[in-house]
């Protein structure tokens, strides 16, 4: 591996990092702009999954070791699985967040 190759890798990892951060920014913009709680969850889960993926990829390329790359891939995989699961729980509770500050208030309003 010549120095040019390493420089290319560095630039690639920086570009991936920047793209990942852009996705995080887009997710946060969506969080602010979208009108209701479930739509905000769309923005958070999906954009942040991709953001995390790109940042992880950037880190894996930056370190350049297969062992570290495997670990980073695992982190990404578990993060995606748990965000898919928690998003289901949050989507279930989303009307609560839309209604008012606390779960019990929502239940009182909906008469359950």
């Amino acid at each position, binding site marked *: 591996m010549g120095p040019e190759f390493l420089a290319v890798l560095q630039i690639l990892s920086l570009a991936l990092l920047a793209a990942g951060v852009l996705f995080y920014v887009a997710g946060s913009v969506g969080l602010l702009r979208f009108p209701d709680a479930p739509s905000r969850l769309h923005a958070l889960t999906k954009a942040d999954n991709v953001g995390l993926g790109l940042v992880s990829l950037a880190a894996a390329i930056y370190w350049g070791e297969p062992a570290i790359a495997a670990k980073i891939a695992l982190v990404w995989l*578990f993060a995606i*699985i*748990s965000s898919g*699961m928690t998003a*289901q*729980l949050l989507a*279930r*509770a989303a009307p609560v967040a839309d209604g008012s*500050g*606390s*779960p*019990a208030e929502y239940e009182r309003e909906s008469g359950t």
Partner: protein
Amino acid sequence: MSAAFDILLCLMILATAGIALFVRGAFAAIAFFIAFGNLLGLAWLALGAVNVALAEIAVGAGVTGVALILACSRLFELGDNLADVRTPLASRLGSAALCLGFTVMLAGVVLTIPPGDRLSKVVAPLLPGLGIENPVTGVLLAFRGYDTLLETFVLLGALVAAWSLTPDASRRLPPTTMVMTDPTSRIVAEAFTRLLAPAALIIAAYLVWVGSDLPGGAFQAGAVLAGALVVATLGGVVVLPRLDSLAARIALMVGPLTFLAIGLAGAALGGRFLAYPDGLEKTLIVTIEYALAISIAAGLALLAIGPPQPMPNNARADAR
């Protein structure tokens, strides 16, 4: 570049802390407190302290957040509206002046101390004898063994104190039911636990093992397991133990007792209390860490969930 990142991070930390401290609603305050804890974890990463970052995110933000949210929803059930009362203007102004003075003084003192890593020069030459490459684990278990031992007892003591708040009437009741009442949410938490809890076990075991050479350790592993336990409880996979459950007591005591036993053995073998015999340091420290991880997991999960609740009158019937 890095300085700009540090400053931006610090501003975000201050902003989230400000919202967490002064926002109107209690639930929003806790949500921002958790975000604050995660950003604080990033700050620890920026400071090069990966161990602390892991502990802050998992324990500081996660477990404290769970405990506070549960406390809030219980208070809400008890009829507390969690509303905040405005303090009189005069006392607010007085407090503000006091705290401003305090902050300025503190920051002034801080700025007179040049940052520097002066103690690692002391620690580094002592580590090779231990066989432990992670200086933080080395400090925690070899040089500050007394502190760490007592700390595990503080955790236990806090749990005993929290449990002692249980009124006599509900002491013999089944423990607080933490199972999600919404069936769909419960199904999701249950499936999540059944598919992933064993993986959490492997990750925790790895964190303890790697903690002797790299960032990780009993507290971080304990927090992972405690998280799995809380989700399992929410999904109804794990039923919380009664206060007099022997299994729960063994799980809570195994760490501190192993630590104590190895410490006393060190004293009996002619050394001093908490001295590890030559050549066995690493094995013994890893053994202590595994036992501690079990107790820390049980302790953190039970602390976060809180003591058995005296049921509000209407809910008593549902609680079987």
